[in-house]
């Protein structure tokens, strides 16, 4: 099975997020980027499928948000090909713009299966994975944890998560796009030495892609961190002091038996 995987860079939420001068968009020039977590799971799932059933894994990414390190890491983990699509850094890769570019490259690649993270935390007016499916004209299902080759050829068996740790097993005829929430195993670790080696041996390929426009009829009028509303009463002090205060609170509420 030949699998296409999309990797996106997103602002790291550990760092403070800033809003730009327009007041309606994230200031991406101030952000530190990391690979989108569910995309990282999509890559892991693709590598697991390749290891169990053969085929290839091709990563497709926009050249945005310090993506090179993520791509070398993907190569070190076992991705066979890396397509890096030229991108104007001044343009934020909104889901609609990104979908237009990535769909074009994926159409040419013509994989059997496309795995994409079901969500990226910076998505607001579109979700990339279903947009890609719509552009490719392929079926889509998301919130998937675990993909396996089906006994019948040309299909995969997926688990879709529902509340209460319930899963639904679905059979998906290929080609298809899947929105991955989790891989069957946590994303693998590769030592830095292997990433360094990948930096020397990996050649990023370019691919033709189309420009897209955002959706019509929707606009951001204001953006800000959430207002400090009913915030928690913060307990200050050393670890011991904080612990003692929490224990007092629990005792007062009758929670210490």
């Amino acid at each position: 099975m030949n699998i296409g995987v999309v990797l996106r860079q997103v602002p790291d939420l550990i760092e403070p997020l800033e809003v730009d001068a327009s007041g309606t968009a994230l200031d991406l020039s101030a952000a530190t980027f990391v690979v989108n977590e569910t995309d990282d799971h999509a890559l892991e799932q693709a590598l697991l499928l390749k290891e169990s059933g053969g085929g290839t894994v091709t990563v497709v990414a926009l050249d945005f948000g310090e993506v090179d390190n993520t791509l070398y890491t993907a190569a070190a983990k076992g991705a066979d090909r890396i397509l890096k699509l030229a991108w104007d850094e001044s343009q934020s890769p909104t889901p609609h713009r990104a979908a237009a570019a990535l769909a074009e490259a994926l159409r040419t690649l013509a994989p059997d299966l496309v795995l994409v993270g079901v969500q990226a935390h910076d998505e607001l007016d579109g979700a990339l994975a279903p947009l890609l499916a719509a552009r490719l004209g392929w079926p889509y299902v998301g919130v998937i944890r675990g993909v396996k080759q089906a006994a019948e050829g040309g299909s995969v068996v997926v688990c879709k998560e529902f509340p209460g740790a319930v899963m639904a097993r679905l059979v998906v005829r290929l080609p298809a796009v899947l929105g991955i929430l989790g891989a069957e195993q946590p994303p693998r670790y590769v030592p830095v030495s292997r990433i360094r080696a990948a930096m020397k041996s990996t050649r990023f390929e370019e691919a033709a892609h189309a420009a897209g426009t955002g959706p019509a009829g929707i606009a951001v009028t204001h953006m800000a961190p959430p207002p400090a509303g009913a915030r928690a009463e913060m307990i200050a002090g050393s670890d011991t002091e904080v612990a003692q205060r929490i224990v007092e609170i629990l005792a007062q509420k009758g929670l210490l038996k």
Partner: protein
Amino acid sequence: MSGSDILVLAEVHRGTLADITFELLAAARGLVGGSGGEVVALVLSENGAAFAPALGAADRILLVDHSALANYAPEPFLAALAEVVTARSPRAVLIGATSIGWDLAPLLAARLDAPLALGCKAISAEDSALAVTASFCGGKMVAELRIDRAPAVLMVLPGSFRAAEAAGKAQVEPCTLSASLEPAAIRFEEFLLPEAGDVDITQQDILVAVGRGIQQKENIELAEQLAQVLGGAVCASRPVVDQGWLPTTRQVGKSGMTVRPKLYLAFGISGAPEHQEGMKNSELIVAVNTDPRAPIFDIAHYGAQVDALELLPALVEAIGARKG
């Protein structure tokens, strides 16, 4: 039905209406206001009439009954939803940010080339537009959106609206569609239920919850020790379960359990909306996180900005000292 109607996708999960349905109906009621529009609930199901009596908060209940809708598969659900929305031209379609909603809302918007907003927490109707407050970046950013094209497809975060009471006209209207609803490329096979035998975290009075901030599998032992002295159990956010450090039955949140203990102690959990929806109604929430901007502090009653790995043993010791 008119262009000022608000359509709500009623969600049926394993034979019952999901709670989100009633929250969406409340949101819809707030939007129709004095516009003369109706709150319309759409039930996509097999034998959907059985759910009509519970949908008294709607003015109209549209039933699409079909064997292909007995269990969820995206294609027949999308075909039915798209046909109803096209035929009835509502002002907005409200869909929950659930497992099904994460498929159907973006797919519907893509099919109809309609505007889509994710993470909706508040929605109001202005003259010619809808104003939407949407949460993103794991709850660390809020955007105000203006949508001036119908239908607006709004994916609503669970827990954002108080469930609606029965107050509508509740007229039931069966629908016949022209679209073929036979499942095509994606076929539902069966539900897989979690293995029984583990602790049922929904039945615990005290939960010690650990998130990615716990850093290593070995550190879960620190939480176990605290749970033991408190007489509670350990639960977790998704990344901890993804790592295989705890079973899925211990996960709290959208795909995990919804809990309402007397005490929820959160260690190293940022408080993303998907986690909050499973625990925000806990009676007492105490959150420990090194990041003062962590959204968990927005819903916690008490918070401390300290290292969870240091505080866990300090708490065990303080409780031990108190018990003597």
